[in-house]
């Protein structure tokens, strides 16, 4: 799967599952500051990623994920 395909899936999840405004979900958007996804929300996001992509994500892998783009790259590397 191409990176932009992963991004589209991620964006769709954010809009459909979390109720986020589609315009706000860009590769550069910061999860906490721009999208108001707090520590509880991150857990939800991870669950949604795991279900959507059929993968498992460990907590340690999330340490460096602060933007949508970083999440997309992490997912892309695991597919």
């Amino acid at each position, binding site marked *: 799967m191409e990176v932009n395909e992963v991004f589209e899936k991620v964006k769709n999840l954010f809009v459909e599952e*979390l*109720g*986020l405004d589609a315009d706000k979900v860009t590769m550069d958007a910061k999860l906490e500051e721009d999208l*108001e996804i707090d520590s*509880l929300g991150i*857990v*939800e996001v991870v*669950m949604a990623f795991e*279900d959507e992509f059929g993968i498992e994500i460990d907590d340690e892998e999330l340490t460096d994920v602060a933007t949508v783009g970083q999440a997309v790259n992490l997912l892309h590397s695991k597919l």
Partner: protein
Amino acid sequence: MSKRRVVVTGLGSINPLGNNVQDTWDNLVNGVSGIDHITSFDTSELPVTFAGEVKNFDANEYMGKQHARKLDRSGHLSIHATEEALKDAGLDLEERLGSNVGIVFGTGIGGIAATENAVRTYDEKGPTRVNPLAITQLMPNSSTGQVAIKFGIEGPSLTITTACAASANAVGEAKNMIENGIVDMVVTGGTESGTTPMTIAAFAQIRALSTKNDSPKEACKPFDKDRDGFVMGEGSTVLVMESEESANKRGAEIYAYVTGYGATTDAYHITAPAEGGAGAVKAMEKAIEDAEIHSSDIDYINAHGTSTPANDKNETEAIKTVLGEKAYEVVISSTKSMTGHLLGGGGAFESMASILSIKHSKVPPTINLNDPDEECDLNYTPNNAVDLSINTAMSNSFGFGGHNAVLVFKKS
């Protein structure tokens, strides 16, 4: 030090009769029932298929899906009612209310629907798929915390869970806080949205609910010979209460004074009221004493009046014990006949009904009261509202667990 006087300066409510205070009051005095067939889930397996539901309220539309997802429905309703109450009190919603404002909310069963959903997910998909927001939705203090966050309430916060007396206890404890100078203002009230297939089944198992499935609007008939149980309801009602000095300083309009609070415990049985309503009698007496009035000063009683055989009989007996001969003259009504039982949200709703009765000099009726029980022989304002100049109103709330909370409100 003399106690400070406590006033009500703001009201907000969303309940089966209306999504704001004005619509609610109009329907109350017109004797409209807010009870109907349940629409929010399939009832085909259930012994009871009707309840008082909040209508035309979409939380996603009201607060946006991203925020709505974080709360249980009881939380959505409490935010909505609080917003109305704060606006009504003339407070600026853009400003944080700060540390001189407290919050005391009551709820019976908190986010029970969130609990049920999480258990269902656990059973179907296992522990790694349980909603990470489950705890923050289901904890009974969820609404208290979310309302505090939304409006910046930084003073003391309490969540009271004394079943169907919860929000009456909340109003009473808020009164104590203000009277004793702990804070100048308290946002208080209650919320409940506990009508689920499981709770209906469980309440029905103990024969607490009316089973008049064919006639939901006529099912809740407090003090009537044909009454057969209470009707589940949902809703949130919020009061802004403050010291008289604080209200005057702000130039806020005063609805009424909160002058009496009496709280007791039956210590008798977990669901049944004590014989003759002994605990209720003591709570009424304590509220009257706290208000520094005589029982004969009471013009209107908003009864607990659940429409269960046991409550209505025992509450009637308790009123007679407290008021003596005057019990036959005092005007009583049960607004639950129209809303159903709002459980932990009931005491706050009925406080609002009492306050509005004082303000409008009008008593909402007890609807569906056509054939009074011989053991219920007082004036319950059957079927039609009455005009009445009210100086003092009393509101009774009693909960499973044997909790009794009685409040007294005065015009001035």
